[in-house]
């Protein structure tokens, strides 16, 4: 919503400065987005007259002009505009002036060997208008040397408000003035239009015909003014419209545009000579078309509300008129329409047809029903004043009377909701200035909202009006104690896991990434997703079309992008949501990481201290276990079984589970086919852990740790090397050893794995160190040997392993 300061002052009596007004507007909820001062912006561009314009000696399309800036010393300018000619008044930019549209600063230069001392300007070159066909032509009487914007009367500051959708009343300047008038900044001039008495009946009747369907037009007012003389509107009116970016067309059209912005009341004018018979307001028939005033033809359907005559559709109700019945210089009889439309329908139709008109903007927010007829009277008076003629009676179809909202308002609500105290007198003063009706002398008053405030429904709205006008800064800041409740953790278990998982992975040298929640359909399918219910109906791009089933594709692409930029050894992780379905319980928090090339957990890149090895499945396994441990998983109970989902290397990946029913995650090398499909290069290893799947920790009665028991006897370590089939899993050998004596055996570690010379093909040697922790007495050699024999026997029984000779 744009308006000029003088326009505002038509409706507001004030001595306040522009700055004060702008600040006040913002502080009462009419946020000023911009204050534009064209006179200032364009002050460098001055009016000149073109004394002569002759053909450029070396260029067909150029002319060499001599221009007079008013000091009698003509300047030579080379100009290519087709409309540059001797005798015209134009606009000159001198050397040193910045030309925004071309992003250049002018200087004296030679164009095809002829010197040019500046530039004759087109509207588009300085962002003044869209006109780039030729240079700006100034009126013949424009004074030489004056800034052209000032000459055009653009020396009025234009204020632009970022209007919130709840305030239809402020789509008109008078509504804005009324709001300001409720503050201490000025007095609102309430100018109710006078009735214009008709001197003859309106010859065109109006019927609202919606049959059995819901009416889209509560009321419609119409009147004829005959014998008008249409032409350019007066200068003051043109200036108003130009200042806010509207193009003056002719007096009749300009009047409707003026009232639209002055009062927030859109109107329409038909050239009565082009209207056939009576008007009907109805739904369009499917397939009916209308060529609208914007020159485009729209195809309509039954959801569109139209105004039709006996020939067909003539206007898109509340959005845009038709070209055929539009008013032109030849119009002598004009039908003026002032109507009310269904806001929801206007919004829908406007969106569907893609029309953003000033009328739609207002009707979809809701125009003042009580001003339907006064608006028509105001338009009639202006037509009579500017174009002459004789007005008919008004015909009205439907009933514009609004529903009245009366609110029972206890003054205590202001304190209860806003923490603010105002006297009854102050409350009544503010509300009445805003046009509310307030009755009652007690601390409980009755308030009726004015017809132009459809946003006011209840007590909270009244509180808002009062707070808004006195200023939110008057609400005292009030400490809000945290209360007497015990201090407890505020994070839920999954929140706590999420945060611990992030820190645990970062400590391991991985860098946290945040990638899009959506991936392409193909990527979703590659990683176990792609369900139709998880595909967006309106994705912003094809590669962001489906909710991600895994964090891996996003991270793989990120790793590849980094590699392509020269950062090959990257270790990335993300902890975030993945989607297995569209229900809330189908959304999980995954902790997922990737290591690429030499980004090993033991150190990234080449280093003098060790041979550079590429990442392997154990880097990913270590990351996965670090996350699980940090997130509180029972690490002792976790099992690792070979293999994982299809996107992992089948022989170099594993699944982490607590029994086959509860899978916590996977790790390993990414499958070469996944790499190829993602256009990613390896070596690339990764893991994914579902934090939601970690079993909940049992609540503890006390924070005390179990008592530490220290044995007085030294632990004993014994090494065993077993030769087993290559397929035997190390974990089975470890478990076999552990089960021999759970009390005595405190630990089993694998310290060597060997395949090669000395070991039969198809076999491997696995060496374990078993730590025995005696509790009651020192063990004798015989006891140790006996236990050793048991371990050998148990391993042999479970894995077929034999002690290596």
């Amino acid at each position: 919503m744009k308006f000029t300061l003088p326009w505002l002052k038509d409706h507001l009596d004030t001595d306040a400065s522009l700055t004060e007004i702008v600040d006040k507007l913002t502080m009462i909820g009419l946020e000023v987005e911009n204050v534009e001062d064209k006179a200032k912006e364009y002050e460098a561009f001055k009016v000149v007259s073109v004394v002569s314009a002759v053909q450029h000696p070396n260029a067909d399309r150029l002319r060499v002009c001599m221009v007079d800036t008013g000091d009698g010393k003509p300047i030579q300018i080379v100009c290519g505009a087709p409309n540059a000619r001797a005798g015209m008044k134009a606009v000159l930019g001198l050397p040193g002036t910045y030309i925004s549209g071309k992003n250049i600063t002018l200087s004296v230069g030679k164009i095809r060997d002829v010197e040019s001392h500046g530039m004759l300007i087109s509207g588009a070159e300085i962002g003044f208008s869209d006109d780039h066909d030729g240079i700006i032509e100034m009126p013949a009487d424009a004074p030489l040397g004056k800034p052209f914007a000032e000459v055009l009367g653009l020396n009025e500051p234009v204020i632009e408000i970022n209007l919130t959708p709840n305030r239809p009343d402020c789509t008109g300047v008078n509504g804005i003035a009324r709001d300001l008038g409720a503050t201490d900044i000025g007095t609102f001039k309430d100018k109710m239009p006078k009735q214009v008495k008709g001197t003859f009946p309106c010859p065109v009747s109006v019927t609202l015909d919606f049959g059995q369907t819901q009416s889209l037009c509560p009321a419609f007012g119409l009147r004829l003014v005959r014998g008008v003389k249409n032409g350019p509107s007066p200068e003051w009116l043109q200036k108003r419209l130009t200042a806010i970016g509207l193009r003056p067309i002719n007096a009749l059209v300009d009047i409707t545009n003026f009232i639209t912005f002055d009062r927030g009341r859109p109107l329409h004018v038909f050239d009565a000579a082009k209207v056939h018979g009576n008007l009907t307001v109805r739904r369009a028939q499917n397939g009916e078309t209308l060529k609208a005033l914007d020159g485009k033809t729209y195809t309509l359907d039954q959801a569109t509300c139209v105004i039709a005559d006996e020939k067909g559709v003539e206007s898109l109700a509340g959005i845009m008129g038709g070209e055929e019945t539009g008013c032109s210089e030849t119009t002598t009889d004009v039908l003026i329409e002032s109507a009310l439309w269904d806001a929801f329908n206007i919004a829908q139709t406007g969106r569907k047809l893609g029309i953003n008109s000033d009328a739609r903007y207002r009707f979809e927010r809701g125009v003042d029903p009580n001003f339907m007829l006064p608006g028509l009277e105001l338009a009639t008076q202006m037509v009579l004043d500017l174009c002459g003629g004789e007005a008919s009676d008004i015909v009205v179809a439907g009933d514009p009377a609004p529903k009245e909202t009366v609110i029972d308002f206890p003054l205590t609500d202001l304190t209860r909701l806003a923490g603010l105290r105002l006297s009854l007198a102050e409350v009544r003063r503010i509300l009445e200035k805003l046009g509310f009706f307030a009755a009652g002398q007690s601390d409980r008053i009755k308030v009726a909202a004015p017809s132009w405030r459809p946003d006011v429904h209840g007590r909270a709205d009244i509180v808002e009006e009062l707070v808004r006008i006195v200023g939110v800064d008057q609400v005292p800041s009030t400490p809000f104690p945290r209360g007497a409740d015990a201090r407890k953790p505020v994070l839920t278990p999954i929140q706590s896991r999420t945060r611990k998982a992030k820190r645990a992975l970062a400590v391991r040298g991985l860098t946290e990434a945040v990638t899009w929640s959506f991936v392409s359909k193909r990527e979703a399918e590659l990683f176990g997703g792609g369900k139709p219910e998880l595909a967006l109906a309106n994705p912003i791009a094809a590669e962001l079309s489906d909710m991600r089933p895994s964090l891996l594709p996003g991270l793989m692409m990120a790793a590849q992008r980094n590699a392509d930029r020269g950062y090959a050894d990257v270790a990335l992780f993300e902890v975030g949501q993945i989607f297995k379905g569209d229900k809330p319980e189908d959304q999980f928090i995954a902790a997922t990481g990737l290591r690429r090339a030499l980004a090993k957990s033991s150190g990234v890149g080449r280093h003098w201290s060790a041979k550079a090895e590429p990442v392997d499945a154990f880097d990913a396994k270590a990351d996965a276990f670090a996350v699980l441990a940090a997130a509180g998983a029972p690490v002792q109970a976790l099992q690792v079984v070979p293999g994982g989902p299809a996107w992992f290397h089948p022989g170099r990946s594993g699944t982490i589970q607590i029994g086959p029913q509860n899978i916590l995650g996977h790790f390993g090398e990414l499958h070469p086919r996944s790499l190829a499909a993602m256009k990613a290069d390896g070596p690339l290893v990764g893991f994914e852990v579902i934090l939601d799947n970690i079993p909940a920790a049992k609540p503890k009665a006390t924070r005390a740790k179990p008592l530490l028991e220290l044995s007085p006897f030294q632990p004993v370590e014994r090494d065993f090397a077993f030769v087993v089939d290559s397929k035997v899993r190390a974990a089975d050998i470890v478990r076999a050893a552990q089960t021999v004596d759970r009390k005595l055996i405190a630990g089993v570690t694998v310290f060597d794995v060997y395949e090669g010379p000395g070991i039969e093909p198809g076999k491997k040697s696995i060496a374990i160190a078993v730590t025995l922790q005696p509790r009651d007495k020192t063990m004798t050699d015989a006891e140790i040997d006996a236990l050793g024999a048991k371990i050998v026997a148990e391993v042999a029984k479970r894995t077929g392993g034999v002690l290596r000779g």
Partner: protein
Amino acid sequence: MSDIAKLETDLLAAIASAKDEAALEAVRVSALGKSGAITALLKTLGAMTPEQRKEQGPAINGLKDKVGAAIAAAKENLAASALDARLNSETVDVTLPLRETPAETGRIHPISQVIDELTAIFADMGFAVAEGPDIETDDYNFTKLNFPEGHPAREMHDTFYFPPKPDGSRLLLRTHTSPVQVRTMLSQKPPIRVIIPGRTYRSDSDQTHTPMFHQVEGLVIDKSAHMGHLKWILEEFCKAFFEVDQVKMRFRPSFFPFTEPSMEVDIQCKRDKGEIRFGEGSDWLEILGCGMVHPNVLRNCGLDPDEYQGFAWGMGIDRIAMLKYGMPDLRAFFEADVRWLNHYGFRPLDFPTLAGGLSP
């Protein structure tokens, strides 16, 4: 010179001239070994008369002790010089660079760090952290929050939708974290104090908008929470978060369907060569929207607006992160460029606490 004296001179000379342990051992054997010279002398003591023994005994034993001590001393000297010689050959180039430790190279994304900061500040004021699903119903994202069907405010949200279900309803990606307010009010009895951080989505993409971004909202519901409390909480938050002693805030009336009255909040700042400082200057910077929870929203969530009241606010996590830590471009948050993450990210052990400071 007696024989003993000569033997002593010879042996001590031999000890002194022994160049290594082997030579020294040869000297020891020749003197103190089974058939060594001193051993032989000692053997003669048995055949002596007491008088002879009395005279020769101390002399021979004295010789034995002297030579023994000399050998021990020489041995120690040899060991010391052998060690010196070994140490001389054992050097490392201590200027060789270390491997960077993982805890130094790992990074936490600024969004996670800022969520941890927010949690620390609001936990101290008695707030819990609530979360909800990204895929929401139209009812929770709009209708229950008092967005009337067809209202222009709905259009301002650029919503991502999923395909319609057989019954015509369609799920959407939440356009704000406000549906979690609805879920909280529906599932929890007041008093309620929560903050709600999370991912939000709008189909908008340009220099300052991304189709996915992060919001944090706050919600307080009880029987007396009012705008004065809201102002105080937001002032406390801004001081704590931006780590300044004073912050000047400007509350402007505005409009959101789910609050009444509604306000937008600006904080005073100073802009200087792309850097923003809070608590000084004369510019205003919009940082959040807030208001009293609309009575319709309370009613839609099963709360009686005559009994319960409260307030809510919301702001962009990415935005406040940019303001505090000076990242110029929102889009970079989601590009996973390790150069950016390394520079703007946080070290894993720099955990924000009120006691130790929010920022490192």
